[in-house]
């Protein structure tokens, strides 16, 4: 193993230049985890290619050396999708960060995978924008968004990454290159593009991506309303949706997350509020005005303690910055936490939140809630102190129960963060053996040798061509490169 890695490392240095191949253990430690610190694995070598050609050559070199690799954008992901394989190769895309083409007439942008999400909107502003806007958009990269099919606050109205990618250049795990789709929609053939977006780096790596951008709405109106409880706020959400209003975004924060976010941005939010509801409407000036007044009345009617309407872009920006800081600011109120990403049908919101409260008390832990109320995507943050004996285990158990509750309510184990490492264990709650075997077929078609990001998504590693049956240890496991859940 060591000999192969050494040879591969030399080869990678030839491809990307010695300056861009990282081998010192301290430097490698900085790449050991993505946004989930609890999954930290030391890679064997990190390579930072500077062009699409170098990416393809690096992947081919790994293929020839028969060593696994993991692609990484900004390492801001929340499912451990960019966690390295122990002693394996990490391919960082952070140097491929050029915006190659901007075509507003056709509403298209061509980017390299290391371009940050916000940079796309900045490049097409002020007339256009790129709608999928994860909270980490200032740092997360388009390549990572493609891997996870990222959503964001505005996806209830506007959709997800997969609805905005029309084509990409792809490097397959054997190092060969091909193009799926293009700037045009509806290319003939299987929708491999649709299968690739959201495949979490297990089918290959994209080196150029065609994105759709759209005109910014004529008007936008934003408010944040404070309620005594999440149940109250939830009622308003139901009212809004029943009235046929499709807001640009509806977000909810509970008391704990309000306090964390307030600590980060000092927006002046009441620290005793049970819930904060952010509602943003966008569209034509006339529609916006009418609908907005309706929403304000609904909030007041439901007993809001206060309603703050953003009077200008600065105030609007502060509302969003506060909301988007909520996760990252959790460090202020809890030493450790598990961040989750479960989805439930929106109509079950009140019931599930109540159940989460119950479970939290039973486990004697606090759970903060931030969520995309419009599409039922919850982000429970299970807070704990790893220094207290047994608390980490209790927190993990609670996290699992919350996920199961959501799946039982007809939901999903992940709405936008992806399965990665973190949620592999819950896959069997949603998918049976046949379902998983169908997934495996897709993976094998792209990656017969299972080298691209092994150990992610699928709960148990499988050989290609394997018949479903009793569990047998996979060679990757034997080599200590993959683990069983």
């Amino acid at each position: 193993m060591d000999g192969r890695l050494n040879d591969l490392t030399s080869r990678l240095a030839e491809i990307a230049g010695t300056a861009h191949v990282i081998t010192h253990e301290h430097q490698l430690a900085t790449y050991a985890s993505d946004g989930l610190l609890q999954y930290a694995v030391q890679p064997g070598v990190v390579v930072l290619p500077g062009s699409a050609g170098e990416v393809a050559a690096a992947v081919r070199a790994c293929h020839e050396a028969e060593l696994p690799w993991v692609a990484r954008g900004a390492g801001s992901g929340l499912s451990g999708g960019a966690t390295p394989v122990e002693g394996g190769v990490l391919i960082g895309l952070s140097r491929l960060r050029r915006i190659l083409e901007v075509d507003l007439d056709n509403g298209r942008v061509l980017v390299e995978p290391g371009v940050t999400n916000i940079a796309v909107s900045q490049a097409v502003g002020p007339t256009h924008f790129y709608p999928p806007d994860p909270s980490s958009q200032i740092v997360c990269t388009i390549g990572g968004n493609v891997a996870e099919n990222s959503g964001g606050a505005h996806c209830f109205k506007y959709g997800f990454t997969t609805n905005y990618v029309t084509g990409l250049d792809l490097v397959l795990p054997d190092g060969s290159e091909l193009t799926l789709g293009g700037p045009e929609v509806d290319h003939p053939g299987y929708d491999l593009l649709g299968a690739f977006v959201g495949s979490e780096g297990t089918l290959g790596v994209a080196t150029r991506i065609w994105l759709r951008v759209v005109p910014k709405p004529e008007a936008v109106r934003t408010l944040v309303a404070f309620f005594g409880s999440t149940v109250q706020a939830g009622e308003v959400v139901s009212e809004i949706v029943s009235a046929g209003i499709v807001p640009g975004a509806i977000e909810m924060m509970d008391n704990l997350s309000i306090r964390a976010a307030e600590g980060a941005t000092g927006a002046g939010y009441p620290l005793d509020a049970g819930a904060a509801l952010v509602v943003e409407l966008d569209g034509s000036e006339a529609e916006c005005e009418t609908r907005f007044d309706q929403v304000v009345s609904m909030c007041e009617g439901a007993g809001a303690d206060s309603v703050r309407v953003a009077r200008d872009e600065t105030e609007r920006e502060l509302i969003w910055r506060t909301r988007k800081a909520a996760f990252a600011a959790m460090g202020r109120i809890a030493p450790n936490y598990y961040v989750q990403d479960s989805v439930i049908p929106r109509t079950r919101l009140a019931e599930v939140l109540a159940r989460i409260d119950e479970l939290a008390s039973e486990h004697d832990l606090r759970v903060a809630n931030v969520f995309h109320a419009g599409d039922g995507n919850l982000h429970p943050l299970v807070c704990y102190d790893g220094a207290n004996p047994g608390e980490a285990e209790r927190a993990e158990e609670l996290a699992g129960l919350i996920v199961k509750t959501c799946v039982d309510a007809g939901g999903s184990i992940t709405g936008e963060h992806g399965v990665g490492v973190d949620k592999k264990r819950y896959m069997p709650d949603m998918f049976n053996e046949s379902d998983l075997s169908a997934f495996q077929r897709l993976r094998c078609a792209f990656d017969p040798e299972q080298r691209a990001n092994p150990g992610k998504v699928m709960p148990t590693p499988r050989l290609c061509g394997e018949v479903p049956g009793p569990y047998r240890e996979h060679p990757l496991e034997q080599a200590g490169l993959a683990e069983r859940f």
Partner: protein
Amino acid sequence: MSGYDDIRAPQLELIDDCVHCGFCLPTCPTYTLWGEEMDSPRGRIVLMKEGHEAISPPLVEHIDRCLGCMACVTACPSGVQYDKLLEDARAQIERNFERPPAERAHRRLVFELMTRPGRLRASAPGLAAARALGLDRIARRPRVRSRLPKLATLMALAPDTPLRRSLERLPEHFEARGEPRGTVALLQGCVQRVFFGDVNEATARVLAAEGFEVHAPRRPRCCGALPLHAGADPEARALAKSTIEELEGYETVIVNAAGCGSAMKDYGHVLRDEPDWAERAQAFSDKVRDVTEFLAEVEPRATRSPVAMKIAYHDACHLAHAQGVRTQPRELLRGIPELELVEPAEWELCCGSAGIYNLVKPEPAAELGERKARNLLDTGAEAVAAANPGCALQITAHTERLGRRLPVLHPMELLARSIV
């Protein structure tokens, strides 16, 4: 290879505050330049943790490459105290890591020169002569820049303050105009007093015009910001103590250099483990105000006359990020009739001066300096307002290098022009 010693190692509790979200990456100048995790705040925190086991050469290199601009502190949602971690890490490196001899000598030279106004004044005639002989232009040539980056940088940055001006000394006392509102001390600084004496004079006159009696004692010679930010712990402590001794008698200590203000507000932390000094230092820090901070807190008294200029405001890192002072200087400048204030793109990105950074890491400093210069020039402004001497030198050098030299004025100089 050893790890940290027991004297103030970067604290694990502070390191654990980092949740690895990455929000600091886009705002970090070195990550913007190179796109490598080790040269990002998030990555440097990981390295600082590793330092408990061993201080390796790569660890030192990546920590050295940090500009100490604190943009990450502004950006961090979790409130990680990167400034404190960096201070401790740098001091540990200086004590426990053996630098190559040439590098050690270079750093020593910089410290010995920079913190001593007397020596800076003594170098002034030499600099004037070099300029007269055109050596600064030679230093700017690409071949010289690439072969002798440190020397070329030194020459390019050397201020062209008129010789006479750099030999002058500021009066130590300024009477308040009208009904006195209070007495303040003004830190003269080291580089500031010799090469930017105009700024000190403008500051004092504005304060006086606003009704404050100003004392600008010759001592302390230096507040210790440069050694503090570079990890030269013994010098930093000694200069902190002498500054406290000289100025703690005043109710308010005014400072007009961003780096100095940030260092003095940090004294409580610098001397936290010395029982005789800890409280005294903190009490002192509580009295320190940047001049724009101070003036924004009081009712303006002196009439402002028009200054019809288009000015680009440059946020000095140690004022904007380290002290959080952004709105006050802008307010003061907007109070000047007919002054048009414009904002450059990428305000949060350091200009590359960063204390002694541009002297010890000239290549990235130059890349950042050029980027800042372009952003400032793109505003179409005729001059730049910057509240730090290091920034002023860097911006001047790099706008000059682009062929469109922009004059750099301290906000107090503009205010002084406006107040008759």
